[in-house]
């Protein structure tokens, strides 16, 4: 018989007799969890991307100040992509006695490819989605433009040599949040067919040409890669990641939450697998010793073990992936009405993840235990009490941790997260083991304190020393997940949702002349009871970086180049905004009146290679100024406050040409005051953030929901750990119960002893779990999500109670069978 055949035969036989149950279940749960998470997050991720596309109006956007070749549209359509084109330019719009600068947004049919246009039949009326675009000769005007022209729906506006009739008030159009505050004039959406008749495009006109594309992610990526080669330098390509910093920051957080959920599942399942594999190996020592006594070599045992592992990987990967697909199908079915979104189909990446999971967990966590089987001393056929071959813990856990890190690395693709998790694992593991030993030691002091059942139960815990610690740590891990899933998760989610509070500013006021500010402040004080916050707003272009002219610098990426070569937004402030945090250097003293200091956002500083102490040259409104970088800031982009890459110190900066920008929360029922505002301050531009805000909120809500579903699987993995931990000492308990029975102990006494033991283990594990959950929750909140996390005092009580109840109940129930067996059968088996 070959090692392969013997291995497979043993495995099949064991799976029939239930011998293999816990091991297979642990890996299948891991794979099911991972693939369900993979399939589901893949689809939810797809839905979230669709949401981001709605902000961009497409999946991919080309923009240029020169006409973009029409052949791109044709070629994109030939690839199965949808395409539309836009032209944006400022020009004067006239109505009866008034005129105003308007930003003409001419769009072709098909626009928007993603998201929808919201219009209302009258100024500041109820906005509703609309299909299609304005017909030729018609226009949809933003409220600000109508207010400035003092007209309403139905008015005829003259644009260049032609005229259009306003048929709707334009409340929102996808893509309006893109491009910052550069588009200051109020918009007029028209059909692109009318542009020629306007006859306003002359050489030197400030016109932006855009083409947008949408389609399957793979096709869009391919098209983007081709465009990178084909388009000239003047054409800017933007994808979903450029769809406004707010949206991408929210998506980023959503992905981190989902990733965290799946990672905890993997870790728990791996722990369960290691425990189950150890038990499986221990139970096969006698057979291996026998095989050796009959002449089997170590090579034979190795081939047999490896073939078993191979089969375990294939079977668990297939079964788990199948179950995972089914599970996510059920989840999608359950969650569809809540998610209010059609999820795109799952990709096969998640299926491959199933195989990867099974292989990683099996090789990393089961292999070390099974490999040791080949070192079983053949002498064991004669002496059962010989200890099992010692596992080289350094090597085996080294392999296991490497396997886990490999797995985590493949999933997270985020070095910071990987480092945090690896460090967290080591700290949690070491603390749990140390804590477990300490608690077992404390418990030993109480063993004489009560009746026989108590003494038996507590004595068991202290006598089993290391096994009790393993059990406590395993129980604590699953309980910790339980606590993380309930208390910490809801704390974190509400903390996260608080980052976009209900009264977050929903309007930006742009283009305020400094002398207008007192009037504006009074206006809002009177109408809504509070004056908005304002920030000075300067337009500036970088001219020199560290003394070198920008034109001579090679930039490492498009983000850095865009920042350096385009006119950007600057502000000056005395105090650091609440949503910013200094990471390097120091914020300036309020009294600084000398050299202008600058504070840069850390990301852009890193891209440009700028450190604290470097100099930058700016041209602001025609004036050249030199500034010294004195601090780097972390910016909370999704705070919905005006955020800036560059902030300058007050003092000399106040002399430079500037306007003010303000943000204000206007309750929906008071939106009508905006008509008065626009009439009173016609030069000030209003930017409606309501739609972007509600999108950010929706993304957060959807992601929160997804995370809750995903954590269901983590809970399942926690249960397998619990089962595996109970299994660890099951054989020993079976034997002990038989001996106690023989000595005259009643079933009731033995059961009580078991209940005491498991309840005590559960309580200790709960205590440890509460500690772990608090620590992990805090680290994750502070480091991974940049949220402030307050400690929840209930976690300690809930941890101990839930631990005692769950572990006490499950443990006693699962070992009940051992107590019920006739002692003679057990003792004869040895």
């Amino acid at each position, binding site marked *: *018989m*070959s090692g392969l055949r013997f291995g497979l*035969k*043993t495995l*099949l*036989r*064991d799976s029939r*007799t239930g011998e293999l149950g816990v091991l297979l279940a642990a890996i299948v749960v891991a794979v099911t969890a991972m693939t369900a998470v993979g399939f589901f997050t893949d689809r939810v991720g797809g839905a979230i991307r669709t949401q981001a596309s709605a902000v961009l109006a497409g999946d991919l956007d080309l923009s240029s100040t020169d006409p973009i070749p029409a052949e791109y549209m044709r070629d994109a359509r030939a690839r199965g992509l949808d395409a539309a084109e836009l032209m944006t330019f400022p020009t004067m719009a006239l109505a009866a006695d008034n005129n105003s600068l308007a930003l003409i947004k001419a769009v072709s049919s098909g626009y928007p490819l993603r998201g929808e246009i919201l219009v209302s039949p009258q100024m500041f009326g109820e906005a509703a989605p609309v299909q299609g675009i304005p017909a030729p000769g018609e226009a949809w005007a933003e409220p600000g433009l109508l207010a400035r022209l003092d007209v309403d729906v139905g008015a005829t506006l003259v644009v260049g040599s032609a005229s259009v009739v306003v048929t709707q008030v334009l409340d929102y159009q996808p893509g309006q949040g893109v491009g910052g505050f550069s588009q200051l004039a109020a918009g007029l959406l028209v059909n692109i067919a009318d542009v020629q008749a306007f006859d306003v495009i002359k050489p030197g006109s400030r016109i932006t040409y855009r083409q947008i594309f949408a389609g399957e992610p793979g096709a869009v990526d391919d098209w983007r890669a081709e465009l990178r080669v084909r388009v000239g330098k003047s054409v800017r390509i933007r994808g979903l990641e450029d769809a406004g910093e707010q949206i991408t920051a929210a998506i980023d957080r959503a992905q981190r939450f989902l990733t965290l959920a799946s990672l905890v599942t993997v870790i728990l399942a791996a722990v369960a697998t290691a425990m189950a594999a150890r038990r499986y190996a221990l139970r096969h020592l*006698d*057979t291996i010793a*026998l*095989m*050796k*006594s*009959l*002449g*089997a*070599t*170590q*090579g*034979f045992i190795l081939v047999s073990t490896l073939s078993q592992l191979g089969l375990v990987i294939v079977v668990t990967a297939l079964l788990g992936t199948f179950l995972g697909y089914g599970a996510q199908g059920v989840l999608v079915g359950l969650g569809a009405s809540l998610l209010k979104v059609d999820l795109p189909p799952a990709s096969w990446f998640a299926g491959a993840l199933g195989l990867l999971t099974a292989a990683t967990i099996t090789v990393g966590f089961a292999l070390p235990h099974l490999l040791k089987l080949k070192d079983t*001393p*053949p*002498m064991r*056929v*004669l*002496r059962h009490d010989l200890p099992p071959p010692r596992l080289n813990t350094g090597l085996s856990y080294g392999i296991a941790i490497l396997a886990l890190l490999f797995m985590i690395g493949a999933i997270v693709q985020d070095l910071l997260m990987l480092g945090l998790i690896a460090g967290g694992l080591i700290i949690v593991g070491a603390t749990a083991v140390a804590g477990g030993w300490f608690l077992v030691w404390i418990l030993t002091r109480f063993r004489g304190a009560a009746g026989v059942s108590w003494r038996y139960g507590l004595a068991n815990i202290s006598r089993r020393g290391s096994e009790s610690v393993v059990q406590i740590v395993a129980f604590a891990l699953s309980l910790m997940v339980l606590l993380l899933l309930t208390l910490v998760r809801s704390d974190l989610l509400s903390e996260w949702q608080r980052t976009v509070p209900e009264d977050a500013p929903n309007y930006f006021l742009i283009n305020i002349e400094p002398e207008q500010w007192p009037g504006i402040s009074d206006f809002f004080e009177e109408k809504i009871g509070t004056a908005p916050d304002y920030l000075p707003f300067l337009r500036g272009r970088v001219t020199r970086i560290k003394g070198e002219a920008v034109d001579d610098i090679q930039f490492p990426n498009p983000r850095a180049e865009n920042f350096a070569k385009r006119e950007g937004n600057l502000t000056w402030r005395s105090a650091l905004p609440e949503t910013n945090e200094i990471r390097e250097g120091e914020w300036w003293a309020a009294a600084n009146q000398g050299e202008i200091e600058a504070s840069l956002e850390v990301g852009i500083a890193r891209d440009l290679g700028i450190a604290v102490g470097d100099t930058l040259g700016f041209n602001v409104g025609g004036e050249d100024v030199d500034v010294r970088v004195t601090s780097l800031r972390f910016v909370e982009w999704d705070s919905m406050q005006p955020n800036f890459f560059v902030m300058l110190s007050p003092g000399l900066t106040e002399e430079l040409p500037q306007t003010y920008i303000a943000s204000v929360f206007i309750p929906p029922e008071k939106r009508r005051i905006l008509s008065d505002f626009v009439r009173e301050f016609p030069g000030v531009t209003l930017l409606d953030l309501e739609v972007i805000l509600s999108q950010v909120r929706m993304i957060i809500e959807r992601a929160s929901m997804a995370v809750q579903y995903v954590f269901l699987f983590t809970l399942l993995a926690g249960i397998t750990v619990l089962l595996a931990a109970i299994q660890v000492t099951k054989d020993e308990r079976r034997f002990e119960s038989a001996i106690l029975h023989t000595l005259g102990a009643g079933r009731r006494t033995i059961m009580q002893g078991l209940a005491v033991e498991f309840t005590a283990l559960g309580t200790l594990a709960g205590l440890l779990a509460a500690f772990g959950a608090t620590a992990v929750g805090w680290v994750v909140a502070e480091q991974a999500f940049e949220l402030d996390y307050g400690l929840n005092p209930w976690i300690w009580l809930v941890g101990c109670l839930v631990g005692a109840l769950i572990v006490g109940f499950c443990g006693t129930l699962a070992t009940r069978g051992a107590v019920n067996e006739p002692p003679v059968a057990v003792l004869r088996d*040895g």
Partner: protein
Amino acid sequence: MQDIVLRTEALSKKVSSPEGSLTILDDVRIAVQSGESVALVGPSGAGKTTLLALLAGLDRPSHGHVWLCGEELTALDEDGRARLRGDRVGFVFQSFHLVPSLTALENVMLPLELTGADGAKARATDALTSMGLGERLGHYPNQLSGGEKQRVAISRAFITKPEVLFADEPTGNLDTATGERVASLLFDLNKEFQTTLVLVTHDRELAARCDRIIELASGKVVP
């Protein structure tokens, strides 16, 4: 004089214990001739099982040498000793030690298959049938009685026609009648195949059926 198939020289086994080094076997010198049946007897803790393990190459001595079928066991590595056992040695254990995942037939085929011998299935079927287990070929160990298990174990031990058969308390787990039948079978086969039989037993009657008795006490051979 017949060939010596098993020989030891100054054989010792020491283990470390909390109380310090413990001597299990001390300077054991024995020689067993081919076809001979030898009983190792002695009180519990005398070192019988340890001696059996060293003779079969299941364990390594602390000092001294063992020659089995002309090969010096102490000079072989673990795989070398396993191959030697597979080719030349059979075992019968007190608790039968059948592989639970294999049927009666497969258990008997196992030693042949491990050595790559031909006709494993036919030979194993014949062996079991001659033992009266022709109806039990497809049964798993947990479906067999104690006596049936030991007969399967004996069939497995003799299937390779081993030169030496080691038996550790072969009747220890059987009732008197079954034990008697199994013992007779063992000695009949010993005669039939001219196999050298080395058995460890507490049973004086069983020991008396052997050609020679070697008595151990406190790790030494009693002269």
